[in-house]
């Protein structure tokens, strides 16, 4: 095994694979990987080549047995990173098989990354968004789904994109607005991650609303592309033998946004988003999928509402009299009604019982009673 790796190394070094002229050796390595990746028994070698020639990583002590424990350290400087980014974009822009590309992307960025690699990944995706590099975004979408949209890595990438294009930007760039067209799959997964970042009591003690520009962008996406939420349901193009991870839709997360939004904000954008969400839910009927709204996600909304009611009780306010709470419940009831009718909620009974425990609301009561029978 080690012999073959060494021989391959030798083989590689004969070509342009010299660490001295960096970007070239990375490009070369990429092309070599294409062939290597097909054969399944050379995974170790692939990893080594990636580490050594693409990320210029060096394990702390070469001879050390406990390689896996010590994280490898990259020798790259910022310029080399960008050279690599450019090389990768160029590589992914070249015509080729989606499966191979996705495989290479997944090899480059697995689910456990050094901080340097994750940073590079963020930059790479951000650059791809800026440059509207569709193939790369598609691979990134696949990667996100495989890694899991709500894993820290994905969230980091999402957060980075938000800060790049929203926080540090005077106006929302066209590239971001057109993202659903360029990379619908990535956009859908991005939405899942972003939805998880804001108005989420599991992440922060208080409900912090998304930046206005981000909300506007997502609302626009949803209004213009009603089917965007279903983009994640498209089958993944993976190399042979790979197992596709289950998809998630941004519907549950976004629903949480619109339901809880009245508690912290009164922007009209939420109403628009709510409308488009309802439409999307309606359209789900045709597709017949029943897992679009996992009941855990909905229960999270209920919990937030409950804690809000507890706070109301503390300040001796009747939830019935609280306009914000009423609005929340109204939206929630509408959504639940449509979701139930389009049959896309898992574990309906449990949800209905939980909903009953909330302070009573007219519309919600009607919805619950209609569906209990």
């Amino acid at each position, binding site marked *: 095994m080690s012999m073959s790796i060494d021989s391959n190394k030798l083989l590689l070094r004969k070509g342009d694979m010299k660490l001295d002229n960096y970007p070239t050796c990375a490009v070369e390595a990429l092309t070599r990987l294409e062939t290597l990746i097909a054969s399944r028994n050379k995974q170790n070698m692939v990893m080594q080549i990636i580490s050594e020639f693409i990320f210029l990583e060096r394990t702390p002590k070469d001879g050390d047995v406990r390689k896996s424990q010590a994280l490898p350290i990259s020798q790259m400087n*910022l*310029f*080399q*990173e*960008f*050279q690599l*980014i*450019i090389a990768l*974009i160029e590589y992914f822009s070249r015509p080729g098989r989606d499966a191979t590309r996705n495989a290479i992307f997944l090899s480059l960025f697995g689910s456990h990354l050094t901080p340097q690699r994750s940073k590079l990944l*963020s*930059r*790479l995706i*951000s*650059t791809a968004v*800026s*440059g*509207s*590099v569709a193939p790369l975004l598609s691979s990134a979408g696949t990667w996100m789904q495989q890694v899991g949209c709500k894993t820290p890595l994905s969230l980091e990438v999402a957060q980075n994109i938000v*800060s*790049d*294009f929203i*926080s*540090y*930007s*005077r106006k929302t*760039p066209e*590239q971001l607005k057109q993202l659903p067209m360029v990379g619908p799959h990535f956009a859908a997964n991005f939405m899942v991650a972003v939805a998880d970042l804001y108005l989420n009591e599991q992440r922060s003690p208080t409900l912090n609303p998304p930046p206005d520009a981000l909300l506007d962008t997502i609302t626009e996406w949803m209004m213009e592309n009603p089917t965007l939420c279903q983009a994640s349901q498209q089958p993944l193009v993976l190399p042979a033998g790979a197992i596709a991870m289950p998809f998630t839709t941004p519907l549950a997360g976004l629903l949480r946004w619109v339901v809880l939004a009245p508690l912290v904000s009164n922007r009209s954008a939420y109403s628009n988003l709510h409308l488009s969400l309802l439409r999307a839910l309606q359209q789900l009927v045709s597709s017949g999928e029943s897992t679009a709204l996992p009941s855990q996600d909905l229960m999270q909304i209920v919990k937030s509402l409950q804690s809000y009611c507890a706070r109301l009780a503390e300040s001796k306010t009747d939830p019935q009299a609280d306009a914000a709470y009423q609005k929340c419940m109204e939206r929630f009831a509408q959504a639940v009604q449509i979701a139930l009718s389009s049959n896309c909620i898992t574990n309906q009974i449990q949800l209905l019982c939980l909903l009953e425990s909330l302070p009573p609301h007219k519309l919600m009561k009607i919805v619950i009673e209609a569906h209990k029978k």
Partner: protein
Amino acid sequence: MLRQNLLDQLKHFIETVSNGHSCPQLLTSPNLIKLALGFLEELPATRDIVFEYFALLAEISVQLYVSPEMADPKTGMPVSQVKLAGNRQQQQRAPEYEAFNLVKTALQSLVWKGPPAWSPLIANWSLELVAKLSDKYTQRRMTITASCNYWLECSAMHGLMTLINSCFRKLTQPEEEACVEIMLNAFHRFPMTFDWIVARLGGCFPYKIIMQILQCGIKRFVDDYRCHLDSEAGILDYMTSCHEQHLRAAFREMLREGFAPKKPLDVAVVPFLLITTNYSDTILQSLVNVLVEIYTEDMCEVIVQKAPLWLSNKMFAGMQPTLNNAVLRLNERGATLLLTAAKMAEKYVWCQDFLDNSMQELEQWVLNQRNFPLLADLAYEETKYMLWKSCLSTNLFEQQTAVRLLLVVSSQHPNIYYQTISQLLKKSYAQNPNGIGALIRLLGGQSGMVNFPGFTPGFKMVLEDITLDVQVNNRLPVPPGTPTEAFNTFSNLNILARMHKSKNVAPYIKAQHLNQALNECLPKILQIFDCTVNKLVLRIDRDAAERIADKFRAQQSKNSNNNNELCNGKDYGKRTKLEPGEDKVDDEDATRMRLAHLIVDLLNNIEAGSRTTVLRTPLVLKLATLSVKYFFVGLTEKTVIRRAAASHRSYTLLQRQCSARKIARTVCLRELVERALFYHGHLLGQLEVYQLDELEIPEHEHLILQNLHTSSGANSNRSVLHSGIIGRGLRPVLPPSERNCDAEKQALYLKALNACCADLEKPNNVEGYSLVSLLLVELVSTDVMYNGLPFPDEEFTRVTMERDMLIRRAFINSPVLWAVLGLIAGHRPALCYSSVLLRALCATCLHHWRGKNVNRFQPTAANDELMLCTKKMLQLLAMSQLIPPPLTNLHLIIEHFESAEIALLLRECIWNYLKDHVPSPALFHVDNNGLHWRNTNTQLAKVPPQYVDPLRHLMQRKLSTLGPHYHQMFIMGELMEGDSEPDPTARLQIVEID
């Protein structure tokens, strides 16, 4: 297409930048900068690398700034305005140097107008960059101010600082804290080169920075108490210039924690703060200011209680020596601090140690003529007042500290020394001897100082002040009864002078100096004395005049009732007017009197006017005049004892002057005699003269009518001897009972004369008495003619009779003249010079006795004026040995004779004898003791009988009454002549037999 373009641009950018390290011109091309700036908007992922590129640009600029090729060849200073000032090569590089400006402008607009997320990012990046660059390119250690000046000249650095500043203004609270954190982190990484940045930027949130710096410092201090806190102190020092308030607030906060420690770190607060103060004076100053501000008695307790806690810190134990220096470094409140310590010193020994060490150090520095900030504090006006107040404190530590401080500052600011002396003299009261103690110490000066100011100006200053006080009445409103400043001052001066006299009491003061100083101030003292005494004299005169007028008015109303009502009416009006002010005036006069006494005491104590001091003649004259005036003022004191005391004082004063200077004696005597005769005679029993408007001429009476009063009628030809006003009747004469000649006062007066005349060195010198004698002639005799010594023929007296009468009148008016003559008579031959007076008396008596022959059977009253006058005259002649022995007893028996006999005796025995034996000093010779003596023993035999026989005959006729006298006068004398050595027992036996 566009997107592809964007990626191409990125590629180009990356390539250029990564290859361009060697070629700054490429990097600094404006196009590339614009591209990079575009990326910030278009390609946000490249933010990091773009900022890295900007950092490169900044570094290029800084590199150029520090590189020698960009320096001004002449001065070696970096040329910051290369475009204008540099040479060609430098100008070529100018775009590179200025490249960062473009970035700065863009970023600044981003900060101002862009989303808020940029501010913290740019702030952090700039901070890091500045820290890195300053660390990398600082070639040598500089002070904070120097660093600031140096780096802010560089355009990139300046731009970065501007950026940071504008970012800071946009930050929210948590971001701000993060920034402070970053700043402090950077500070920890580069403590040597980052301090100027912290100091510079600290101004944006001073309190936070100051507090953080202090906290950082304390943490380091706790970890290792030997650590160097230069940078922290430097930053604090720099920031103090603008943000002292914040520093103080921070100190207040920390001290609050330090005094009530809760966290383990709190224990180190006080040691830490004290250590920090060693690094910078301004910090020390602030700390002290805070401490003084919050200091209370309770706090002191707390400090004592907590001190063991602090002592556990090793540094604190060995700190005392540095603390001592601390006070010297204070610019303000140093004196307050020391005094506070002094106030506590009684209680705590460590305060004493602190004080001792500090003061020693202080004095050492002064001795070495080093300048230090504390001096400025001490010279401060308010400090001065505080120190003065402390000088009067009963707390000895406080007082001594204040005095020492004053001495220290005096060496540099003599005016403060003078003012202090003046103030202490004025404000030390008898009740509180501390003030005077302080003064004595102060007068001692700073030992070892070469050019220490003398204290004479101080005395002069206070005297000047008092002069003004005394001259301008009621300058300051003072409640009655309080001792005035003048009184106080003189009493203090007096104490000093007395102390100096009893030399061992005040070893601090060099004896001669004080005396000399006070004598130098003599003009001023005399001025005050002059003012005081003259006012008193005026008062005496006014009182006397009023009293006499009252008496006469009463007398007049008794004598004649015609003008009674009118007079009284006017009179009462006058009196009532005076009364309200009376008490106050009296009180004032009493104060003034006491002041006068004090001044004289002082003059005596400093021996003013003695021979050893040099005085200008006007001063001598003034002193003499004033002494005499004081004597007369002293006579008006209310009780005998006080009069005696006052007189005694003036004797000393007079005697000293008179024996020192002839001119003083002349003036004193003249003044004494003149005043006794003319101005203050009423004190010595002078016959009070009628001084009212005697004539009372009606306003519109014609002159012709007035003349008619005098020129017609029986008395019109008598001009001299009249005793009333023609047309008005007799003058009112006071009843004889009221003519009291005050024996006590006369005695005092005579002693005064004696004090002037007596010569201590030559006790037998009669010069003074002769002078008095001559003066009497001058003042009493109205004529300049015939004032010589010889007695003329008795017939000749007619020519001088008028003059003689006037002289006699003078004796009647001023009985004190007799006493004076008596004094002179005792000092032979002084009386000789008054021959003319004796002659006048003799002549007038002779004539009067002769005149009595007309009604010879009228018996003469026992105390008839004529008889008294005759007796006194005879007594005088006898005393002065102007008449020989048998005649010397004449005054005892004269009253037994009839007027005709008296006239005969006066003529035959006295006048004729004196005519033949002219009373002149030549008659006397000086004996072994230096006394003037007329050898009567040998001359007795030679007394020609014609002068004695009339007496002998007359006595023989009246032997029954004059027997014993006859025996004594004639028989005894003859016996004694026979016996060369008379035996007193034998003489007695003879008397008995006889």
